[in-house]
């Protein structure tokens, strides 16, 4: 599949998912292109996290089709899950260095940690950090070498006002450079954001 500017990076065709005999969502059809920012909204338990896990290939039990135009998605994917994905025994810097080695990311760790406001906390074991600070260790990867697809689960939780603005700027700059950003949150980055709402088993593209 050749990837020109306007062909869809991600195509969902009547995607449906069931859990514990309950239809989470069904009939989800959409196309996402490089450079777009998608906001996924819905009540707790509406299946937002499950949808993201389907997109990144963690969850395989669904009906319908989920197609990426990128042959080896995982090399171009930056996924921040529902859990921060860091170990409490390790310090912020150790966690970040391991995440970069695992995901093949490079970049200046210190400036990334500073961007998320963790300057001075680099070698504090994560166990002593607050929940918000733990999440921000994972977020620091957004400031490292760029990937073409960002899938972020609730990036804005436990982020203070200053953090929200810098995160908005970061998402917008990444989208500007052609990254497809898909995130779940109640916060809207800006007017250009395309929205997908999950409610009552239905999924519809709002804008």
């Amino acid at each position, binding site marked *: 599949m050749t990837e020109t500017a306007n062909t869809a990076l991600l195509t969902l065709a009547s995607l449906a998912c069931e859990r*514990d005999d309950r239809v989470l969502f069904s009939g989800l059809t959409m196309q996402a292109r490089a450079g777009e920012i998608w906001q996924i909204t819905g009540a707790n338990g509406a299946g937002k996290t499950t949808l993201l896990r389907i997109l990144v290939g963690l969850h395989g039990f669904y009906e319908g089709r989920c197609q990426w135009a990128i042959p080896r998605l995982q090399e171009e994917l930056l996924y921040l899950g529902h859990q921060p994905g860091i170990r409490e025994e390790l310090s912020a810097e150790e966690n970040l260095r391991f995440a970069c080695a695992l995901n093949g990311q490079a970049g200046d760790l210190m400036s990334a940690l500073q961007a998320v406001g963790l300057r001075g906390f680099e070698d504090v074991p994560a166990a002593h950090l607050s929940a918000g600070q733990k999440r921000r260790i994972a977020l620091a990867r957004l400031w490292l070498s760029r990937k073409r697809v960002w899938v972020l689960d609730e990036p804005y939780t436990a982020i203070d006002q200053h953090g929200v603005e810098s995160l908005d700027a970061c998402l917008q700059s990444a989208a500007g450079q052609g990254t497809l950003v898909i995130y779940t949150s109640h916060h809207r980055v800006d007017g250009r954001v395309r929205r997908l709402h999950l409610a009552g088993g239905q999924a519809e593209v709002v804008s």
Partner: protein
Amino acid sequence: MLWKTIKRGYHQLGSPRYFYRFSSAVLPWLTPIALITFVVGIVWGLAFAPPDYQQGNSYRIIYIHVPASSGALMGYVAMGIAGMVAVVWRMKMAEIMIKAIAPFGAALTAISLVTGALWGKPTWGTYWQWDARMTSMLILLFMYIGVIALQNAIRDPRQAARAAGLLAMVGVINVVIVKYSVEWVNTLHQGSTLKLVGESTINPAMKYPLLISMLGTWLLYAVNVMVRARTEILSRERRSGWVKQLVAAGGR
């Protein structure tokens, strides 16, 4: 042309709905045939086969012991294969089969152990002897229990089936290794293993009933698997139209 039929066959084989229709047609005549074959084999072995010149009549337990052992072993191997198909090719029908094959396999393993022990008492004086065959069968029972326990521990039916499938795949390799390691450990501790008296010198008059009761056991196994598979299909496809329609009509 050939490739198209294989492809269509593969898809049909893979679709639970087709299997449900196929089993609805097959079960009504397969069940009586299975029962008749089984009973004929057993009665022939019990009443008409000649007594063994050494063991007398206690050897007649063979007509349930050997079929049960072979059914248990083949059942686990079948589960391993279904597991591979489910894990590697993600075929829904294979997942359903894993769940359907396990229970009767465990039942046959238990039967094999009990009948083996009851046969051992009059022949060698003890119910349990840790000889190679019986120990392998005991370990096979543990592995069946492992697969069933894993399946019941996981809530999502597809994930449970696939996890059990992977375990069954690993288990099949283990069955082979256990067979040889148990035989080796017997030579280590007891000198020569005690060969089952009479099995090697089985004369035709004893062999035919054994083959028939074995065939009967396998046919019963097939019936049991089909019935369980149908239940699993209904449970998994409850949301699809054809199940709703079938249930509403209260059809067989």
